[in-house]
């Protein structure tokens, strides 16, 4: 490991002194938790940070994840005590700033998505999906209908089926057509009076725009179902189209994708949901209401699904995204999408001599290449290509997703990469395609660690030092 575990240090004897502080018999008897003086602590965690790669380190074309640059003005704003030291249950007198910002953010997301109302509560995209599925359920029930099926294309992100299933829906998966798009006849066949919703990503996870989206909307609506927009790919189309214009009823946003908030190595993110007005009564409570200067929180929404998380949303993330929207403005967002698409198409062109890239042009913000030929020809899989890219300081693309492309390499450079950087990514990938397979299969060769044995981890299931110690003691 990069540094010895903190837990693996000695600690002076003794137990916390809890007498008189907790009920008799409830005192803690021992706790292994060594304290590390600040100088050593900093070195430890800074060394760990240096063994981690972020967008500030280099190219990070991780498809579907939209690893945009995280602008630094947002950090400055987020450090203010006007953000950090706010409590969600304060009197409205104290929170006008938060409420105003949330209200403006809701309005901005309405403009961007073409929806009528937005809730900022969900903590991430999947959380937004779940909130939406609860609304879908509540909506149909409110009409006396007990629809129990949700339709998803096979190219959908895993969270789509997972969220629908978690909300108690049966899944109906439809295969993509030859062209990588939704097969309208398969959709038609799947739709019925039991259909509660159809979940669609547009552009889809192959980076293809579902041009028949309006027709799908009619089909879905004709059957009394709702059309759901997975907004993870919104970065492709801002200023050109919107979920509203495409006919969607519900949409979730990923602020940590489209709106440049940091992903934090896993989170926190933020996954607001937007709906058409007929669904507004179902949005989570409380809602921000009132006018500038006298905003408040309204809990009296009898049809609301209630709460999906304890907070009103991840406020600092909302604030960062709102600042980004202000900074870009309408034109800037449109330009960001245009550049993201240009970059993806350029990079695609630059590598397609070495990798197959199934399906037709143009792509939107991402594309999926395949290492199928490499695998056949030299036994080099997508995984191996990825590991070898690590040696060159380029973060690998998303691999093996979507599943309908064999040996998939899902590449999304975002608008932030310069031509120079795109050329570098391409050069690295192309060189790997030509490299001798032994080298590639052995990668990564540079750097502090070699290829990591993921199956051993799964077999051993050692998830804590406590467990490790228990095994050592055996």
């Amino acid at each position, binding site marked *: 490991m990069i540094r010895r575990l903190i837990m693996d240090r000695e600690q002076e004897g003794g137990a916390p002194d809890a007498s008189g502080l907790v009920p008799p018999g409830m005192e803690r008897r021992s706790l292994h938790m060594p304290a590390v003086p600040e100088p050593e602590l900093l070195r430890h965690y800074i060394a760990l940070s240096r063994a981690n790669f972020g967008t500030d380190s280099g190219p990070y074309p991780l498809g579907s994840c939209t690893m945009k640059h995280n602008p630094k003005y947002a950090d400055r704003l987020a450090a203010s005590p*006007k953000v950090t030291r706010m409590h969600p249950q304060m009197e409205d007198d104290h929170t006008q700033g938060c409420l105003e910002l949330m209200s403006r953010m809701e309005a901005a997301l309405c403009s961007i998505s073409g929806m009528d109302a937005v809730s900022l509560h969900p903590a991430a995209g*999947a959380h937004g999906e779940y909130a939406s599925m609860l609304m879908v359920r509540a909506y149909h029930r409110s009409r006396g209908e007990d629809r129990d099926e949700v339709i998803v294309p096979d190219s959908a*992100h895993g969270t789509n089926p*997972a969220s629908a299933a978690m909300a108690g829906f049966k899944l109906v998966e439809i295969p993509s057509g030859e062209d990588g798009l939704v097969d309208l006849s398969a959709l038609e066949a799947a739709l019925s009076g039991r259909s509660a919703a159809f979940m669609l990503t547009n552009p889809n996870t192959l980076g293809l725009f579902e041009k028949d989206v309006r027709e799908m909307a009619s089909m879905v609506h004709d059957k009394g179902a709702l059309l759901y927009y997975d907004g993870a790919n919104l970065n492709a189309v801002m200023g050109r189209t919107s979920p509203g214009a495409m006919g969607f009823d519900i949409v979730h946003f990923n602020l940590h994708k489209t709106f440049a908030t940091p992903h934090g190595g896993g989170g926190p993110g933020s996954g607001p949901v937007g709906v058409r007005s007929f669904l507004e009564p179902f949005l989570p409570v409380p809602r921000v209401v009132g006018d500038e200067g006298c905003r408040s929180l309204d809990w009296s929404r009898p049809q609301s699904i209630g709460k999906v998380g304890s907070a009103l949303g991840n406020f600092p993330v909302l*604030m960062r995204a709102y600042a980004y929207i202000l900074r870009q403005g309408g034109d800037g967002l449109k330009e960001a999408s245009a550049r993201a698409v240009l970059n993806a198409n350029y990079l695609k062109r630059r590598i397609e001599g070495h990798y197959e890239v199934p399906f037709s042009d143009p792509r939107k913000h991402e594309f999926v290449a395949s290492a199928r030929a490499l695998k056949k020809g030299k036994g080099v899989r997508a995984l191996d290509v990825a590991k070898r890219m690590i040696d060159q300081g380029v973060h690998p693309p998303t691999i093996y997703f979507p599943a309908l492309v064999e040996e998939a390499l899902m590449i999304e450079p975002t608008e932030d990469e310069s031509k120079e950087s795109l050329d570098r990514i391409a050069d690295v990938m192309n060189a790997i395609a030509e490299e001798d397979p032994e080298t590639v299969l052995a990668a990564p060769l540079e750097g502090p660690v070699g290829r*990591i044995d993921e199956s*051993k981890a799964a077999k051993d299931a050692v998830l804590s030092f406590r467990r490790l110690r228990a095994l050592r003691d055996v």
Partner: protein
Amino acid sequence: MDRKEMMETIGIGFEEDLFEDVPAEVRCHLPLPPGMSERETVAAVESILERNRHMGEAPSFLGAGCYDHYVPAAVDHIVSRSEFYTSYTPYQPEMSQGMLQALFEYQSHICELTAMDAANCSLYDGATALGEAARMCARLNNGELFLAPRAMSREKLSVLRNYLVGTGVGIGLYGWDEDGGLDLDDLGPRLEGEVCGVYAECPNMFGVIDARTDLLRPLTEAPLVMGVNPLTLALCKPPGEMGADIVVGDGQCLGAHPNFGGPGLGIFACRQEHVRRMPGRVIGLTEDSRGQQAFCMTMQTREQHIRRGRATSNICTNVALLAVGAAVHMSLLGRDGLSSLARENVERARRLMDLLSELDNVVSPFFGNHHFNEFLAQMPVRPEKLNRVLAKRGFQGGLPMGPHVPELGDCMLLASTEMHDDATQDAFVAALREVL
């Protein structure tokens, strides 16, 4: 210049050509004003935030799951390291050993605190962690009802309900006793039914360190879920020693700022035998090709990106950065630092309850029991009204209980932490004395 070359390479004449696949009928404009400079952006957002009055400006006695603790500067420094906060979920372990080790350390710390074997590397917040725990009980066990305390915030209860929607399991609520601990007479008979899982909190919603949680294990064979405040655990017997199967809680108090309530840090720990039924991402220890110890995400086949509709949860993005912050926080404080911080919180709350008890018309604490850093006080006026009056005087009172537990509608849940000095508490009580 670059742009032109790129378009030539692609073989297009206009950028617009890249959008030829977007049909005319879905085209639309973006009705937002033009952009601003960085300076203007910062000024615009600051002028909105200016309208807030934060806890340093109006001392606050709110807690109820979100606490104003001092965040050591070292914690903020580490989570501000670009390599950490600009990275994604560590899908490529060879490029992310730093984040993976930090998260493994977080999991390890949580396991030590709770005395459990395994923890995941975070869920959204304490409430969704409870929701996921209830769902996991439904995976581990049959049974119709998930038993939980009636003394729960409306937020948490609502989340719990929403997370059980798809399982068919209902919620059974049990009451509290005259000392604010769980009511075994109420709970006992309920345990006879088809119980899917049992949830108990310590400290509970009243801030009570409830010794009765230690009596639960022998009473049921259903999975036992315990809700904790991790800071309390520096003083208190851990759930692992009380027979818990699953432990949940919110770790915001471990080095994260209140931030208007979100992000929280959903803690989720369980016994080794249950690990493959857990929700969320977990980091495991393994080896690399050179035989060195290393880390990676593991048991991903439980997760949505592999298992899709049959995953143990839909969660993808979690709150990893807060978990890193919590690991730094716990490493910095260690056992002794954490337990003396916990002690300070008990003592702060005690001092405040004592001061309040001197007010004629206030019952403080409402429950005679051990409290951690918050407690109920019964007020002679509606807490909602009282808070409005206090706000005018530059204070933020405690949480009115009415919306959560209607029969305690004349009570307020007051929290105090190390951030309150004597003067702040005294000034608050003086203000109360004047208005009551």
